[in-house]
């Protein structure tokens, strides 16, 4: 299945139809993916806290970025198209490139850099809108931290403050790195099929198809 350039779901990169064997073509499957993504973090955090304690909880922080790149937006990989325009300037096929970034990229066997379409006005509006929604939602942790953090800070030692900040930064990082992509995956409609991909149908059930005469 392909999507045309006039499709309303162009924010989803149709070169990545599957993410962890889950198809991203329908909104329903994408919503399952988003829910699964956050459930994974909740479960993993609970397991880590249970077995290793809060001291090692900060080890989840790198994972928040790595897994967010799987959703796309931040890098070339993932179903959501790359957000930033300066990263999008890498237009040459990867095989022809000799700059250090591309050599490292090739060595790391990252996905190809070709077929990166420019974002049009509609794409940019969707990207900005998703970031606005994510930002508006994520202001609340900052406000709550400012309001209620003070009660904790009065009695805590510097080490306790450091641990608390590290622990609190993990869920914030999970949301901050992934929420715009999750909003796009959640809200974008189903992919539309090209007409040539659809099975040719008779105009009316009783009338045989024209190609069946030949």
């Amino acid at each position, binding site marked *: 299945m392909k999507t045309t350039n006039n499709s309303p779901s162009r924010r989803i990169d149709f070169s990545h139809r599957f993410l962890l064997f889950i198809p991203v073509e329908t909104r329903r499957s994408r919503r399952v993916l988003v829910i699964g993504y956050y459930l994974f973090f909740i479960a993993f955090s609970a397991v880590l806290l249970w077995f290793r304690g809060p001291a090692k909880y900060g*080890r989840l922080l790198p994972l*928040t970025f790595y897994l967010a790149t799987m959703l796309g937006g931040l890098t070339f990989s993932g179903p959501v198209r790359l957000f930033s325009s300066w990263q999008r300037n890498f237009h040459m096929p990867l095989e022809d490139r000799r700059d250090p970034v591309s050599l490292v990229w090739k060595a790391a066997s990252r996905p190809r850099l070709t077929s990166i379409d420019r974002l049009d006005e509609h794409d940019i*509006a969707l990207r*900005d809108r998703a970031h606005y929604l994510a*930002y508006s939602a994520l202001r609340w942790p900052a406000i709550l*931290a400012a309001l209620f953090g003070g009660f904790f*800070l009065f009695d805590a030692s510097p080490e306790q403050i*450091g641990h608390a900040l*590290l622990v609190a930064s993990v869920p914030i*990082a999970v949301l901050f790195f992934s929420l715009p992509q999750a909003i796009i995956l959640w809200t974008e409609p189903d992919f539309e099929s090209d007409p040539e991909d659809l099975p040719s149908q008779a105009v009316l059930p009783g009338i045989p198809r024209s190609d069946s005469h030949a």
Partner: protein
Amino acid sequence: MRNKKVFGLSMDQRSHRRRLVIAAYTLLAVLVAGGWVLDRFRTTGLYIYFAAFFINYFVFGGYGPYGLVRPFTGTAPRQAIPRSLVEVQLNLAGIRPAPETADSRNDERELRIRDRVHYQAYQWICGLLALLWLVAMSENGKSSFIPAAVLPVLLYLIVLPGILLAVTLPQAIILWTEPDMEMEPEESAPATTLHSAR
């Protein structure tokens, strides 16, 4: 953005708004430095947050009904802000004029700018989170090169500007980048008449 005055200064010109943004962040920086000197943010950290919320709510606007930037959600304040002593007295007497809802409504261009500046602000906050990420990575390594006593302070010095920026940055970008506001035709008309009379 609304045509308003802050501390008696008109904010029609971009240069004035930029000075206001610089002044606001300078004030916050001074408070951060003062908090650090006084008690290492133990108590003063909370007041720095409150200062940022005050600046955001009453001066910058955006995430509240007041301030220079129109409310991002387009919701008007529940009651009009008293602009004179007479209005204050009317308010005290229980006569509250209805707010001007049109003043809080964003047009299509303003909504587009709102979304764009949030995208830009998001990149900056992500940059700060990446710093936090680097600190955590260094801590997770077997040989930590950050002394244990410095780590909480370092984290706090990343988180505190992060929260201050998260609260104020989109509005500051709007105030910084928006061009000079054009004069209303009826305001500029007398000047033209005088000019032509010479």
